[in-house]
């Protein structure tokens, strides 16, 4: 079947939405390959429908059987991002996979929330370890009337607040940050692996 301009626009529109959706999660070379393969599928199906009287009906049927572009993109993202995260264990793919699950599933959102807290606390400890040598009089344990009320950095230090803790805070904060980061990351990877075992498509 030779498509009219309207038909071509419909196909290009589908591929455009698919490409835009895939770009959210996948590297550009993977997106190009995926869109090329889906286009090949569409062109093949359209060519096979040669002689059909109503282009619009045939095209909608072909696109309907292929599935909405967002559904197809979601399947690609689920397969790719989670696999990459579980296989490599790298930070960026893991965050990408968790973000994807948070956007598509309810439990993924809850998981992402707790992981965000874990990563944020870990980075806060790292920040303390880095800032202490630079701002020794602003980073440490804060005391009010002799009682510890906080741990971190204050710019400027509020009146009545005394700062305790020497440079030993640096290795302590670094160790805490590393421990929390590794724990959070392992938890994320384990949850993603469990999710991957349960899904197939």
């Amino acid at each position, binding site marked *: 079947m030779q498509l009219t301009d309207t038909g071509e626009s419909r196909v290009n529109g589908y591929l455009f939405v698919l490409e835009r959706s895939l770009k959210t999660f996948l590297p550009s070379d993977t997106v190009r390959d995926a869109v090329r393969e889906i286009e090949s599928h569409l062109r093949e199906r359209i*060519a096979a429908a040669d002689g059909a009287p109503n282009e619009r009906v045939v095209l909608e049927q072909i696109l309907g059987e292929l599935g909405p572009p967002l559904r197809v993109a979601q*399947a690609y993202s689920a397969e790719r991002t989670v696999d990459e995260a579980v296989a490599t264990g790298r930070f960026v793919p893991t965050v990408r996979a968790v973000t994807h699950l948070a956007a598509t599933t309810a439990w993924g959102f809850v998981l992402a929330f707790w992981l965000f807290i874990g990563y944020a606390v870990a980075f806060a400890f790292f920040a303390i370890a880095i800032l202490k040598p630079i701002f020794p009089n602003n980073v440490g344990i804060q005391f009010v009337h002799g009682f510890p009320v906080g741990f971190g950095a204050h710019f400027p230090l509020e009146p009545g607040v005394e700062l305790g803790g020497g440079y030993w805070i640096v290795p302590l904060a670094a160790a805490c940050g590393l421990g929390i980061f590794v724990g959070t990351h392992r938890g994320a990877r384990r949850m993603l692996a469990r999710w991957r075992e349960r899904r197939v498509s």
Partner: protein
Amino acid sequence: MSHETWQEQLRRGSLDLAILLTVSSGPRYGLSIIQHLEAFTDLVVTEGTIYPILGRLTREGLLDATWVEGEAAHPRKYYRLTRAGSKRLDHMKREWREFADKITRLIDAAEGHDHAAH
């Protein structure tokens, strides 16, 4: 678990095996794989979701993918089973048969028990 959920899990759980079986006879491109699956099974609900699975099986080294141009009006991406894929398929076939035999025996035993009770 609802009956629909169970059916869906069964369908999803067998798709990898079905795809590997489809390409075991020789290289096929995406649409050809889908058409073969549709001819023999009702495993394909949404055609577009087969491609991500093909991508995953390729990344896992079970399939090898190659773009072929000039054969049709549009380039086709052909998939063929790798040696690792062939080995995995043998394992999956054996496990599937053993699993199916066990469940069949269980069904037969349950039905035999029912008949005896009646």
